[in-house]
C-alpha cells in the first residue's frame, strides 16, 4: 500500500495518479488501434475528452448537491482541486450523457466506437486495480490463507491483486488482433469485442466480490455488487448473442 508519495515538500496521492496514467496510456493505445474498428482516432480522442470533462463537472456538482448549504457558504470550494469532493455516480451519468450527445452529433457508429473504446476501458481497469492496491481500497475479507496480506488490522485476501490480475487477463483476452477482437475487426460482428469485455469484467466481479471485505450487503448476506454484476453479465451475454446472430446473417447471402 502506498497512498501517498512524499517527494520533498510534495505529498502526491498515488491512487489518482495511477488512474490518470492509465487513462493517458489507454487513450494513446485506443488512438493507435482505432482504424481496426473503422473509427476516427481524432474523434475518439475528442469524445473521451468531452466525457472526462463532463464527468468531472458532473461529479463535483453531484457532490455539491448533497450539501448545497456548504457550497453556498463557500462557493469557491466548487473549484478546489480535491478528489474527495466528487460523486462517482453523478460523474458516470454526466460522462455517459455527454458521450452520447457528442457521438450522435458526430454520427459515430455506436458498435464500432464501443469496440474501439474497449482498449481504453481495459487499460483503465488494470489502472483501477493498481489504484486500489495503492490506496488499500476494495480490500479483502479476513482469511488465514498463506498468501493473505496484513491490511487494516487483519490478515486479508489480497483482493486488489486478484482484481489487477483479472483485469490483465481480460485485457489480454480482448486485445486487438486476438480471437475475440477479430469478431469485431474482420468477422462482421461489430460490438462483440466491447460486450465480451463487459461480460468478462462482470463475471470477474461476480466471482471476486465473494472475497471482498467491504461488500454492501442485502437481505441474507447477498452482496449487492454480485447481483448487479450478474444482471450486467446477462445483458452482455445477450448482446454477444445478438452480435453473433448478425454475423451469421451478414455472412448468409455470400
Amino acid at each position, binding site marked *: 500500500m502506498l*497512498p*501517498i508519495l*512524499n517527494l520533498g*515538500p510534495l*505529498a502526491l*496521492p498515488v491512487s489518482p495518479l495511477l488512474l490518470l496514467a492509465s487513462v493517458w496510456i489507454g487513450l494513446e493505445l485506443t488512438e493507435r488501434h482505432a482504424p481496426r474498428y473503422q473509427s476516427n482516432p481524432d474523434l475518439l480522442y475528442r469524445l473521451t475528452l468531452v466525457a472526462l470533462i463532463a464527468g468531472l463537472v458532473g461529479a463535483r456538482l453531484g*457532490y*455539491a448537491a*448533497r*450539501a448545497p*448549504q*456548504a*457550497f453556498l*457558504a*463557500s*462557493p*469557491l*470550494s*466548487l473549484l*478546489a482541486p*480535491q478528489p*474527495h*469532493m466528487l460523486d462517482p455516480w453523478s460523474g458516470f451519468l454526466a460522462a455517459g450523457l455527454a458521450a452520447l450527445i457528442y457521438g450522435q452529433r458526430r454520427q459515430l457508429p455506436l458498435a464500432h466506437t464501443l469496440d474501439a473504446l474497449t482498449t481504453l476501458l481495459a487499460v483503465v481497469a488494470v489502472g483501477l486495480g493498481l489504484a486500489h492496491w495503492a490506496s*488499500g481500497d476494495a480490500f479483502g*475479507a*479476513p482469511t488465514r490463507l498463506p498468501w493473505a496480506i496484513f491490511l*487494516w*488490522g*487483519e490478515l486479508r485476501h489480497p483482493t486488489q491483486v486478484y482484481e489487477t490480475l483479472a483485469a490483465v487477463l481480460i485485457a489480454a483476452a480482448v486485445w486487438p488482433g486476438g480471437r475475440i477482437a477479430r469478431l469485431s475487426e474482420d468477422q462482421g460482428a461489430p460490438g462483440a469485442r466491447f460486450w465480451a469485455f463487459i461480460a468478462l469484467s462482470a*463475471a470477474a466481479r*461476480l*466471482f471476486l*466480490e*465473494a472475497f*471482498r*471485505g*467491504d*461488500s454492501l*450487503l442485502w437481505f*441474507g*448476506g*447477498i*452482496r449487492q455488487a*454480485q*447481483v448487479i*454484476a*450478474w444482471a450486467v*453479465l*446477462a445483458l452482455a*451475454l*445477450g448482446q*454477444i*448473442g445478438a452480435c*453473433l*446472430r448478425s454475423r*451469421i446473417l451478414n455472412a448468409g447471402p455470400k
Partner: protein
Amino acid sequence: MNKRWNLFSALALVLGAAWIALSAAAPGSVTGGLTPAPRRGFLAPDLALEDSNGQLVRLSDLRGRPVLVNFWASWCPPCQAEMPALQRVYDDYGEQGYVILAVNTTFQDSEAEALAFIEERGLTFPVLWDWDGDAARRYEVRSMPTSFFIDADGIIRDVVIGGPMSEGLLRAQAEQMLQQMPQER
C-alpha cells in the same frame, strides 16, 4: 452456433446465481464497525491525549457526536492554510454538536511554536498533544495534514490525506454527519 451460445449463456448465469447464493456473507465477515483501523468504514482507533489545559480527552467519550480528528504540525504549510477554515466550521457547527480535535504531532513539532501558532490564529477548538507519536502511529499518519471524519457511532466516514482541505469539503462533511446523527442513534 447460436444454440450453443444460448446454452453456454444459460449455464453461465445459473452458475453465477449459485455462486451468489454460496458466497453470501456470514455475519461479521465484511467490514463492520468492530475492527479498529484508520480507514473508512472501520471503528476509529481510540485516542487519549492531553489538551492545552492538561485535561485528558478520550475519543471514545465523544461517542454520540460527530468528530473531525485533524493531525497537524506548526511547520506544515497546508496545515496552517486549512486552520482558518477549520475555525470557521467549528464556529458554525460546534454548537450543534460537531467536535474538532486538532492533534498536534508534538513528537515532531515544537510545543512553543504550536502554542504561538494557536494564539496567533485565535483557534478555539481543542488542540491535543501527541508527545510520543502513539496517536499518529495508531492512525498510520504518513503525511501532514491527515483528517479523519468520524460519525456519532465512532465509525470513520472519510479520510483526507494532505491538504489544505477546502471549506466546502469541511462544511459538507459536517452537515452530512450532523444530518445522520438522529438516524444513526
